[in-house]
């Protein structure tokens, strides 16, 4: 039996290439099935179009206009918005801050997640193992504002846990969120804490697909184990590593909530001190919704969009050379 072809959906067209016959192909789809299909995708399609694809296309348009959303007036200004943007030192600073943030958070998170995944790998079968895996993952599902509150306390220069630990280790005290030097690293620590569980779980999923012997070879201690890990395990999990790095990069390039809450507390407006934590997302938010410079914010959004696209493509390009797909 041609069981593979028996579902109502076996491909039914003819393969002739010209357009007329392609139109004729539509007749091969059952009409009711087509209508029902469109009816069923319509609700989600509307959401995606109106709230995501529509705005994405709209962004292209508004970046090149000077406009006022409330008056609904707009004039074409070409790249004017981008020129204004280029003359804003704060814009360049925000890009630098974002770059600094991404370049530290992504490698640290990825390495930490890989380490945790290796540590927790066979934990499911051990007493309390499931609990440790759950606890590592737990921060990722917690609400950012709620957990930022406790981290704001941890980073409190006088009574916080962080400085208490430093004191205990006989290390110098740090101003954490109050210090222009340490504010962004503080946010980084929060971000690593909040997201590493997700990447750990992704790595665990990747590791679970490996043949058992491969991991046992790498389990041996000492040089041979390390060699086996580097030469066998790492290449085998490179697809998942690539996915983790890509996801982490794209996510951290857009960090907003923890910066807004952690730096907007007792130490002045968000992004401080001295704009040391003003990243691209925060600047877009402030420009658009605090200062109502929508044209400028659109131009920034456009830049961010292109940057993220570029990062994705570059990483894909590198991955095509390095990632080993089975």
């Amino acid at each position: 039996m041609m069981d593979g072809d028996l579902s109502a959906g076996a491909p039914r067209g003819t393969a002739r290439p010209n357009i007329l016959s392609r139109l004729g192909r539509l007749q091969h789809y059952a009409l009711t099935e087509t209508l029902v299909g469109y009816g069923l995708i319509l609700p989600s399609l509307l959401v995606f179009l109106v709230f995501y694809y529509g705005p994405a296309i709209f962004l292209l348009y508004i970046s090149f206009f000077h406009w006022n959303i409330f008056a609904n007036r707009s004039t074409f200004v070409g790249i004017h918005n981008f020129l204004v943007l280029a003359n804003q030192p704060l814009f360049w600073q925000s890009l630098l801050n974002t770059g600094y943030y991404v370049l530290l958070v992504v490698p640290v998170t990825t390495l930490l997640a890989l380490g945790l995944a290796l540590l927790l790998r066979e934990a499911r079968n051990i007493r309390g193992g499931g609990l440790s895996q759950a606890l590592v993952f737990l921060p990722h599902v917690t609400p950012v504002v709620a957990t930022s509150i406790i981290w704001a306390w941890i980073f409190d220069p006088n009574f916080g846990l962080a400085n208490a630990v430093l004191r205990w280790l006989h290390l110098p005290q740090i101003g954490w969120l109050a210090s222009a030097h340490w504010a962004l690293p503080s946010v980084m620590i929060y971000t690593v804490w909040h997201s590493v569980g997700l990447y750990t779980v992704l790595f665990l999923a990747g590791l679970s697909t490996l043949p058992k012997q491969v991991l046992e070879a790498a389990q041996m201690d000492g040089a041979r184990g390390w060699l086996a890990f580097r030469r066998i395990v790492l290449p085998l999990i490179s697809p998942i590593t690539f996915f983790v790095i890509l996801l982490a990069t794209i996510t951290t390039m857009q960090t907003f909530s923890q910066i807004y809450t952690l730096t907007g507390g007792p130490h002045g407006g968000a992004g401080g001190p001295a704009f040391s934590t003003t990243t691209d997302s925060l600047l877009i938010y402030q420009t658009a919704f605090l200062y109502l410079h929508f044209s400028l914010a659109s131009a920034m959004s456009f830049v961010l969009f292109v940057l993220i696209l570029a990062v994705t493509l570059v990483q894909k390009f590198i991955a095509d050379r390095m990632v080993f797909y089975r």
Partner: protein
Amino acid sequence: MGSIKLHTISKKFGQRQVLHDINMEIQDGEFVVVVGPSGCGKSTLLRIVAGLESPSSGDLEFDGRAATHMPAHARNIGMVFQNYALYPHMTVFDNLAFGMTARKSSRQEIQQRISEVADLLEIGSLLKSKPGALSGGQRQRVAVGRALVRNPYMFLMDEPLSNLDALLRERMRVELRRLHDRVRIPTLYVTHDQTEAMTMADRIVVMRDGRILQVGTPDEVYSRPNSVFVAQFLGSPPMNLVRVERRSEASLVLEGSEGTAFPAPDGIRRATDSAWWMGFRPERIIRSHGGASGLAMTASIRAIETLGSRYHVHANWGRFPITWVTPEAPGLMPGSQVALTVSWNHVHWFHRDTEQRVPEDAALDFPVEAGGIR
């Protein structure tokens, strides 16, 4: 109740044509089995009758009315799938009632119909169970019950027994046929198993490569196969087939073995062909003790299978392997020679090039019968 007619039904999936101009008819109360090897198009044919696929060309007629474009649910068809397609999260009762509730039948009507069907199929005690708790045979019966509940115009069954073990399959064959004899709903039954076809059908339709090769009662198709393929496909063990060539007007020779010439029957003497497929059923072979008329051969025995009620003797005649089914095999053993005979009435002739049956009047001297293709 009524008949189902198919006129020149063809079906293409992309470039691949899976059905070629199928013509057939299922009469009221008839049990028709479509049999053929995997990929012959028999399931597609069934699905076209069900309305799950539409034909690329050709027409379908139910009870004299055009049905080609009738939607599946309007055809009032009860279908039994190979995997039974029982919904695992519903009880047997809910499975049986599902179609009727969806069509907003009254509660009382549903109850009554289901209890009738449950009585008929003896599944009354299972109504509250879920399919997962049933045995293969019980699931099979529930699936039949679901098809029956709606009092269908016809039954379509797609390999309904192939998920059962051999013993159960044999029992269900009898049960299904007995059910058919009671309700007399026209049934189109698709299988690759020739035993099911032979034992259950009023009429058999043999298909290969999207074409109907032969239609007929099991007896007709068995005793007068119209092609080499049908001859070998039906019957177990299958028909012995050997290639023969004409040596002279009156004698034939087994291909590749010059020494064993044998006289040709009259019809063959008159024919213009010079080479044939010659076939004979394993159970038509008898041991010759000299003097018997018919096809005579000397075969060397390779192996003997004992089945209790009979023996399957595997032997070589010339370079052709043949099988002989015999109730007794005294003194036979592998390596020995045995003289065998088949009456000329039981020898089938097929053209070597077309593999079609040589009509009886041309081949032999007994009365002609219009067997074969309708």
